[in-house]
């Protein structure tokens, strides 16, 4: 036990301040305030891999490492779309995942946000559109913010999530 505690002590705090989206200075506290003013509570994210190569997933994982410490800002990943405010969708949407993505979107309560992740999520990327790929996420469900990159960095992902939360609610979304 002592070795664990010593290691924790020596590692210290690694969390970094959050990035500045679109030139607006936004420290961790500001982000929390933004999330609270929009949602009135913590932001819950459901990740959906709609056909990704698993590259984007690696960087989504990184958001929870001690440097980016997403949970520390009151943003957490949840196990069900029914618990989620925001869907973080990766991949070109494979034809085999189209129905599952649609149902996941339907299962997410309003108001809901969708962030399409990566070049593939934006437009299909190297996979394009084919018998097996529907292309970008917006071909299947409405998208609020797109984060390009292959894969996008964790900082770009954070900026995308912040941009989605800061956006006025989509027309048609109650509340």
């Amino acid at each position, binding site marked *: 036990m002592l070795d664990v505690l010593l290691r924790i002590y020596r590692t210290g705090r690694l969390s970094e301040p959050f990035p500045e989206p679109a030139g607006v200075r936004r420290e961790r506290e500001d982000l929390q305030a933004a999330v609270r003013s929009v949602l009135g509570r913590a932001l819950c994210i459901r990740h959906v891999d709609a056909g*990704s190569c698993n590259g984007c997933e690696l960087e989504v994982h990184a958001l929870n490492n001690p440097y980016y410490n997403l949970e520390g800002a009151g943003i957490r990943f949840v196990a069900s779309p029914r618990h989620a405010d925001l869907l973080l969708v990766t991949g070109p949407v494979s034809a085999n*995942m189209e129905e599952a993505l649609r149902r996941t979107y339907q299962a997410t309560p309003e108001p809901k946000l969708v962030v399409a992740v990566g070049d593939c999520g934006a437009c299909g990327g190297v*996979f394009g559109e084919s*018998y097996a790929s529907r292309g970008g996420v917006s071909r299947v469900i409405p998208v609020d913010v797109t984060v390009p990159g292959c*894969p996008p960095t964790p900082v770009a992902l954070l900026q995308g999530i912040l941009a989605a939360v800061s956006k006025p609610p989509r027309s048609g979304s109650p509340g």
Partner: protein
Amino acid sequence: MSPLPPDSLAGSSAQPLPANVAAGILSVDRKGWLAAAESVREAGATLLALWGSDDRDRDGRFHVLAAYLFPSELLVVEHALAPGETTFPDLAPLFPAAGRLQRALADLLGIRADAGDPRRWLRHGSWPETVFPLRRDVDPARPYPPASDPYPFVSVAGDGVHEIAVGPVHAGIIEPGGFRFSVVGEKVLRLEERLGYTHKGVDRRFESFSQLEGHRLAARVSGDTAVAFSWAYCAALEAMTLRAVPPRACALRALALERERLANHLGDLGALGNDAGFAFGLAQFSRLKEDLLRANDAAFGARYLLDQVVPGGVAEDLAPEVEALLADQHRVLERDLLELRGIYDEHAGLQDRFHDAGRLDPGLARTLGAIGLAGRASGLPRDLRVDQPWPPYDRLAPRLAVRTEGDVAARVQLRFDEAVESLRQCRALLDDLPPGRVRTEVLAAPAGHRGLGVIEGWRGPVMVALEAGPEGSIRRCHAHDPSWQNWPLLEFAILGNIVPDFPLINKSFNLSYSGQDG
């Protein structure tokens, strides 16, 4: 091209095949397809890949190909089906891993094994049963309306037996796939996997890339194995065009490959701790992984090296000042890794979860044709870097890491062993980095030329088989991920374990969905 060594049983009439390792190709008839498989199995080789090609425009036939991995060479057996014929002899009784590969071939090319499981595998109802996307007369760009697609899982009957259906959208940040558990109480009686959800039509998609651009798609077959796949692709192309890669580029490719292995092993070691309730492990290892990725960014201009390996060499040279940064990092990483290994080893709660969980004994692993990391954790001593070292591994003297217990603990220990060995290789590469260019010009291969690239990625050997089309185009390219072989292992490793241990056992294999689905 070195001649085939004498231990090649079926290789007597094999022709050399351009590849980064010793490889041959043997053409056989229908009878020879099975006879070759039998002699290959007797010789102790494993099935590496099975794929097919529509060559009706050329010789009026479909072709089916199998790549077999011997300890010191690779043999491809090719069978041209008779004109009008769409079946070939079933290899699954000899090599169980052939089962799903043959089902995928039936879905994509419309040629099928003459026996075995008749259910579809990659086709889920997204395209009609009568459309075979790998046939040259099918327009790959044409989408089809989705149709309902009930899949006949095998059901288990009995008093108190119930089913748990999981997926395709999973509860964590993970790729999609379906799992059907048949359980009594919390004990698993049967697990059946249903994969193919991320099928993106990669093989056919290759044909819309030029030979000199195809590495970009190869890197994205499975994004966590980008260096291995793009290297395999480039190795095939370079072997076909007889282009030698500068020594410095070989070294930098290996540095990228070992750092890819390290990044994945560090991520998995953290996740395995976390899945056993030890969040400290996740925090520590994900920190080390992030440090590694940031150093990649400083050294190569990208956190993940998806576009580092290019035909003829690498995209980015290493600046002298960055060499020192990487060398420092390798030292710090090894120190931290050994400290954390001590903590994992001494943690009774963690070891209690790891030991005996998800055991795959060596005999079963051999029978099922396990390869790569999962195979080495169950006593199968195969590693391409050791067995058939291609440059620069021929001068690195890679050390084999192998465990025989076959449980989660063995797969954890193997990752520690391999991470330490990767760090040793990274140090050796940096200490003796050859000077010179990092890229040489590669011209496209003439139409009809074929080549093969095999690279030991972090999960196991990945393979790319490439055939050139006219004017620098790709006629056919097949990418194979070792997850094809190792996904079925999980169905056995879980038996008798409890459902709550599934995430831990699954993570200990950490197989690719995208790489399998193609």
